[in-house]
């Protein structure tokens, strides 16, 4: 009857109702987000981010030859100030380079790889003198070996998150894989993201 329809709440759009009433499998968008986040973590140089350390300027200090690797001592009169720059002491006789103003400006720039790639592709779009040669950034973007280019790609393999064997089954609550019932019970006891996270 039509009244019943208004009483029963509608499930949120991203849940996919399966045969098992009340339970659901993770939908594609969540899985895709998880995959991308995991891939980004795998490509990082460090796991924990230390933004303070990353943004500290590096100064080449020629005079502090005895203090290799140690942060400079703050004067006793000043309060304990935070380290403001990394002091690298160089060779005993001094820098082998000119330490020009342009170099210091270049070193102080905070560019990321994405900025440089964007500026290279931007430049190429506007330059008209290199029509016969293709630029490195063009080659960089197009030289990725993808499965679509003429090779047959098998579907992705999954591994049990507990022991590493074939991950044939998926946990209905959190979407992690397991291979057998013993691994499943370990998973549910200790690692299921739904209960632990």
């Amino acid at each position, binding site marked *: 009857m039509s009244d019943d329809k208004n009483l029963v709440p509608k499930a949120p759009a991203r849940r996919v109702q399966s045969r098992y009433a009340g339970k659901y499998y993770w939908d594609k968008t969540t899985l895709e987000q998880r995959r991308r986040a995991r891939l980004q973590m795998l490509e990082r140089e460090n796991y924990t981010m230390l933004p303070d350390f990353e943004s500290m*300027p590096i100064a080449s200090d020629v005079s502090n030859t005895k203090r*290799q690797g140690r942060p400079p001592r703050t004067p006793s009169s000043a309060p304990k100030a935070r380290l403001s720059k990394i002091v690298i002491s160089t060779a005993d006789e001094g820098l082998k380079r000119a330490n020009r103003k342009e170099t210091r400006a270049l070193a102080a720039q905070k560019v990321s790889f994405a900025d440089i790639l964007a500026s290279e592709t931007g430049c190429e779009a506007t330059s008209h003198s290199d029509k016969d040669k*293709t630029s*490195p*950034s063009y080659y960089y973007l197009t030289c990725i070996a993808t499965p679509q280019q003429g090779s047959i790609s098998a579907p992705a393999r999954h591994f049990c998150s507990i022991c590493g064997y074939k991950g044939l089954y998926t946990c209905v609550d959190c979407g992690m894989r397991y291979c057998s019932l013993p691994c499943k019970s370990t998973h549910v006891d200790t690692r299921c993201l739904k209960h632990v996270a």
Partner: protein
Amino acid sequence: MRTLILDNGSFTIKAGYSDIQQPLEIPNTIARTKRTKRVYVGDLIDKSNDLSGLYYRSPFERGYLVHWDAELAVWDRALSDDVLGCQPEETNLLLTEPVFNFRRIQRSMDEMVFEEYGFSSLLRASSTKFAALGSGHTLYGNGKEEEAPECLVVVDVGHSGTYVAPYHRGRMVASAVRRMDVGGRLLTNYLKETVSFRYWDMMDETFIMNAVKERCCFVTQDFYRDLETAHGKGRGRLAVDYVLPDFAHSKTGFVRGQEPRTEELMRDSVQILPLCNERFAVPEALFHPSDVGMDQSGIHQAVFQAVMACDQRLQPAMLANILVVGGSANLPGLRDRLAAEVQALAPAGTVRVAVPEEHKPELSAWMGAQQQLHSASPACTALDQWRVTREKYHELGPDRIIAHFDRFK
């Protein structure tokens, strides 16, 4: 006037003068220890005993030299009297760059070499080019120096990623180069992630996990067979216990059973990392990046695609001369597995894969450059004509120098 060969990699710098046998390997990062919060540039990290939780500040991002402040600090350390003792005004420099280096970075590199450091001359090329120049010895060598073959595929399995670069008559076939983003760094992070989930939390221990990867991991010839063995009764053959370091006695830890004084070194409080299927499942990411969720082809498919993108008449020769260089080429079993996989993709051709044995694969670019400078064959004296002196740099300007090095590729 001496020549300094500096292979500027994203993990280590391999540097040395052309008249010595082996280059020095200097980590190309600035490292900070966790507990004592000290900062070490380049190879100074060896002086520290506290290697846990090292934080790396690398000049490279995705394989490209982006952060000059860190790179200048490392180069200053490398050229200092403690390490190389170089006088730039009286030195010729051979420098490597990534394949497809960006113009902006090339300009900065040339500027640093000539105007900042003041080197007497420069020859800048990609590391695969130098490896290709010296490849004759690995592919055909019987102890005497051989010229590089006419068609050659260089597979550089490095820290940031893998490049497959075909060379024809010494020149790179740019349109046939293929790249995949699985490299040493991703393998180490994959191992860290796996081990942290199953045993101990090692997400911050890049240095230790790198050592574990180098000592315990190998490439399997038959993945499913080894997976069954690791799961079943034959575990003992594949399982390995890695003793994690307590920094009083060892810096990187060791594999139980491989150190001669193992029983003495084993204390009650040691932490053991039991590795079985991780040993070969982690390097599988090279062949199946979909294992880590990456939508790219495996290294065997990348090699195949690169060869197929070359002229049809060159393809059989390309397949027969595949050279694997780079740090991850040290993985045992990589050569045989790659040969078998590429052969399966190209059944009609004869596939031959070579990994350098006379030196470590990560030194191939350096060794290739050194061999060229010392060889008597006519091809190498050509290196002299590609060198650019400081006077010429000032005369012609940076853009024409970049175009000049482009022709050397």
